[in-house]
C-alpha cells in the first residue's frame, strides 16, 4: 500500500488525467432535462467508465476489484468532486449497502452470484422502512412465512429509493411474529422481478420521484436468498450498515468540501446585486470560514472513521456521529447558499440528475438536505444512538406495544 506523500501526488496526477479525459462534457445540461431512461442509461455508462478506470468500487476488498487504501480513496473523491464528475446515484445502494452486507454476512454463493453482477450494473434497493415502521424500524410488519423451500412475503415497504430501477432488494421481514421484535426479523435478498411485487413512485418534497412504495403480495423468496440465520436479520443489518455508513461518507464529505463549498465561494466572488462582492463582506466571510472549518472537521472525521474501521477500533457510535454531522452540516451549508444566492436561486426549477447533494440549484439542494436528516435513521435517532451506545447513558423505558 503506497500512501506516502510522493505516491499520493503521483496518484492524484493520474486521477486528474483520467478525469480530464473521461468526465463527460456538459453532462449537467443533458441531465437537467433527462427523462428516466436517459438517466438510467447515463448512470450505467458512467459506472462502466469508472469501472474501466479502476475507480468504481475502490472501497471493496482487493479480491473483488477494490483494495484502494483510504488515503488514495480520499484523493480519488477529491478529484472526482473537483472535476465535477457525475455521482453514482443509481448504483449507490449496490456498491455500498448491498456489497457490504454480502461481504460481511453473505454466503460464498451469494457473493459469487451478486458481486460480479453489481460490477456489471445490477441495481439494488433497500427495503427496510414501512408506513408504520420508520424510526421504530424493528417494529416492521412485513411477514415472511416459511413454505417448502422458501419464504412467502406479504406487506408493504416505503421510502425505497430507486426501487423503480432496481433488480434486487435488501429486504427485512418478520419471520417470527411471537418473538420480541428484534429477535423475529430475517434478512433476505429479493429478486425485484418476482411475481406479486408492485412498485409505485412517491413524489418527494423536492418534486422528484425516486422514492417508491413496494407492495408485496405472496412474493416467493427461495431459502438460499436468506442472509445470515433465520430471525437474526436485525443483527445482520446492524452489523453491516453502521460500518457502511462511514464508508459512504468519505465520498460525500469530499463532495461537500471540493464541489459544494468551492462553488459557494466562487459564487460569492461574483458581483453582488448592490455592488461590490459578497466575499468582501465580513459577515459573509465569517460564515464561509466557519463552514469551511466545519467541513475540514467532517473530512478528518470521515477519514478517521474509515481508518479506525479498517483497524477494528471504531467506537460503537462513530458512524452515527459522522452521519449526524454530515447531514446537519450539509443542511447548514445549503441554507447559507440559498441565503447568499438571493432571489435568482429560486428560478432554478430542476436540479440535474446524477449530481451531488450540492448541485448548485441551491433552493432544491436545501430542500433535498432533509433527505439526509430524515432517512437512514433520523438525526434524533442518531443522537439517541450516540447517547446510549457512545456515552452509555440509560436507555429510555420501553413502552409495550
Amino acid at each position, binding site marked *: 500500500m503506497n500512501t506516502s506523500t510522493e505516491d499520493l501526488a503521483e496518484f*492524484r496526477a493520474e486521477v486528474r488525467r483520467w478525469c480530464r479525459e473521461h468526465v463527460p462534457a456538459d453532462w449537467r445540461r443533458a441531465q437537467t432535462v433527462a427523462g428516466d431512461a436517459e438517466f438510467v442509461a447515463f448512470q450505467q455508462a458512467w459506472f462502466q467508465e469508472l469501472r474501466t478506470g479502476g475507480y468504481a468500487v475502490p472501497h471493496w476488498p482487493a479480491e473483488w476489484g477494490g483494495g484502494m487504501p483510504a488515503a488514495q480513496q480520499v484523493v480519488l473523491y*477529491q*478529484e472526482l468532486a*473537483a472535476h465535477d464528475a457525475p455521482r453514482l446515484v443509481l448504483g449507490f445502494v449496490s456498491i455500498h449497502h448491498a456489497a457490504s452486507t454480502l461481504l460481511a454476512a453473505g454466503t460464498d454463493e451469494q457473493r459469487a452470484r451478486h458481486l460480479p453482477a453489481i460490477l456489471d450494473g445490477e441495481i439494488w434497493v433497500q427495503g427496510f422502512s414501512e408506513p408504520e415502521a420508520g424510526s421504530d424500524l424493528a417494529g416492521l410488519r412485513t411477514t415472511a412465512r416459511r413454505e417448502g423451500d422458501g419464504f412467502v412475503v406479504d406487506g408493504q415497504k416505503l421510502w425505497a429509493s430507486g426501487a423503480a430501477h432496481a433488480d434486487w432488494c435488501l429486504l427485512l421481514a418478520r419471520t417470527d411474529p411471537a418473538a420480541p421484535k428484534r429477535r423475529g426479523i430475517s434478512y433476505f435478498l429479493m429478486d425485484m422481478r418476482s411475481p406479486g411485487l408492485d412498485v409505485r413512485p412517491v413524489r418527494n418534497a423536492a418534486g422528484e420521484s425516486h422514492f417508491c412504495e413496494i407492495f408485496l403480495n405472496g412474493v416467493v423468496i427461495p431459502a438460499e436468498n436468506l442472509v445470515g440465520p433465520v430471525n437474526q436479520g436485525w443483527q445482520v443489518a446492524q452489523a453491516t450498515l453502521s460500518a457502511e455508513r462511514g464508508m459512504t461518507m468519505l465520498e460525500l464529505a469530499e463532495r461537500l468540501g*471540493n464541489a459544494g463549498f*468551492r462553488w459557494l*465561494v*466562487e459564487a*460569492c*466572488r461574483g458581483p453582488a446585486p448592490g455592488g461590490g462582492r459578497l*466575499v*468582501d463582506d*465580513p459577515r459573509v*466571510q*465569517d460564515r*464561509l*470560514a*466557519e463552514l*469551511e*472549518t*466545519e467541513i*475540514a*472537521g*467532517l473530512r*478528518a*472525521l470521515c477519514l*478517521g472513521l474509515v481508518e479506525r474501521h479498517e483497524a477494528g477500533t471504531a467506537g460503537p*457510535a462513530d458512524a452515527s*456521529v459522522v452521519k*449526524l*454531522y454530515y447531514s446537519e452540516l450539509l443542511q447548514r451549508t445549503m441554507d447559507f447558499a440559498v441565503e447568499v444566492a438571493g432571489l435568482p436561486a429560486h428560478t432554478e426549477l430542476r436540479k440535474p440528475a446524477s449530481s451531488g447533494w450540492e448541485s448548485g440549484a441551491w433552493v432544491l439542494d436545501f430542500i433535498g438536505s432533509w433527505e439526509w436528516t430524515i432517512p437512514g435513521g433520523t438525526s*434524533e435517532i*442518531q*443522537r*439517541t444512538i*450516540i*447517547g*446510549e451506545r*457512545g*456515552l*452509555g*447513558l*440509560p*436507555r*429510555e*423505558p420501553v413502552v409495550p406495544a
Partner: protein
Amino acid sequence: MSAGPGTAGAAGASTPQDVDDLRELHRELRDVARDMLRKTAGRTGDDEAPVPVDWSLLAGSGWLGLEVPEELDGAGATFAEVAVVLHEIGRAAASSGYLGSAVLGVGALRLLEPGAGRDELLAAVAAGEQRLAVALPAGDDVTIPFHVRPATPGDAPGAGGGARVDGTAGFVLDAAEADQLLLVALDPTGVPVVVRVRPDDPGVTVTGQPVVDETRSLGAVTVDGAVVDAGSVWQFGTDPQESVRRLLDRAALAVACDCLGLAEAMLEATVDYAGTRRQFGRPIGSFQAVKHACADMFVRISVGRELLAAGVAAVASDDPQAGVAVSRAKSYVCVAAVDVAGRAMQLHGGIGYTWEGGVHVYLKRALLGRALFGAPAAHRARLAARFAEPADDPLTE
C-alpha cells in the same frame, strides 16, 4: 525524568511502526499526567482560590523540558507531546505556570538564533530552575507591544552599549510568577526581536491582573525606559515576522488544547451526573432532551479533536501553512468548549450553578480561553482572507 517521552517526535513518525510507538508514548504520557493532576489539581486555599500545581512536581515530571533539546537536558520531543500535557492540564482545569514557561517560553527561545545565553536559559527552564513568561499580544490586536532603541542615542542597533526598552503588554500569562520575562519587541528598524528582562529590573513593572477565571494567572508588563545589556536582545533565527506569527500560532493552539481537555471533562461529568441523578422516577439521562444534548456535546468534541489534531501535527512539524489548521482549531474548539461547559452547567441543574458544584470553574476557563490569542471571529477573518481570490490548487492542503 519519570514521564519523559524519549526522543521520538511527531515529525519523525513516518512508518506505521513509528506511528504506533508514538501513540503508545502519548498514551503513557497522558496516563501519568492525568494521574498526577488528579492528585494535585483542583485544590483551593484558605481564600478559596485555586492552589497552583506544585512547581517541583512539574520540574520532576520532565514536562518543562519536553521541547528542549537533549543536549540541554531536555527531552528533545515536539509540540505533539506538549499538546498531550496541555490537554490534561485543561481536563483538570489546573492552575499552573506550564503554559507561560514550558510552552511559550521554550517556544520563543527555540525560535531564536542559537547562542550561549539562550541555551543556558533553555536548560534552566527544562530543569525548572527558571520560570518564564512571554509578553506578546494576547488578544485580537497583534501589534507588537515593545520597542527597543539604543541605550545611548546615536548608537547602531545591537551595538555594545545595550538597549533601552519601552512598552506595555496586558494579559501576559504567568507573568507574576516568572523569574525572567521575554518581551516581543521591535528594533529601531522595525524588525521583531526578543528582549530578556527581569521583573525587578529598574523600569520594569509587573502587575497582577485578576480575571474572573481564577485558575489562570495573568499580569500586565510595563517597561518604561529599562536599560538592558546587548546580550539580552536576541534575534530570531529565521524570518522575524514569520517567527512572531509562529509564536502566536503556538499560543493559540496551546489554549485550544486546554479547551478541548476541559470540554471532555465537562462532558464526562455531565454523563456521570445524568446517569445517576433521578427525577420523575428515572435517571435524567434517559430523557431525550438530556441525552440528545449530551450527544451534541460529544459530536462537537469529536469534530474539535480532529481539527486540533491537524493543528498540532502542523505546528509540531513546522509546517509553513500551519496557520490555517491553527485558526480552524482555535476558532472551532474554543467556541465548542464554551458551549459544552455551558450545557454542562445547564444539565447539572441547580447544583451546576453553585460555587461548590465546580462547573463554573470550567465555564470561566473556557470563556477566557476563547478570548486569549485571537477570538474566534479574528481567526475566521484570517481564514476568510484566503477566499478573496481563487487559489492555485485548492485541493492540495
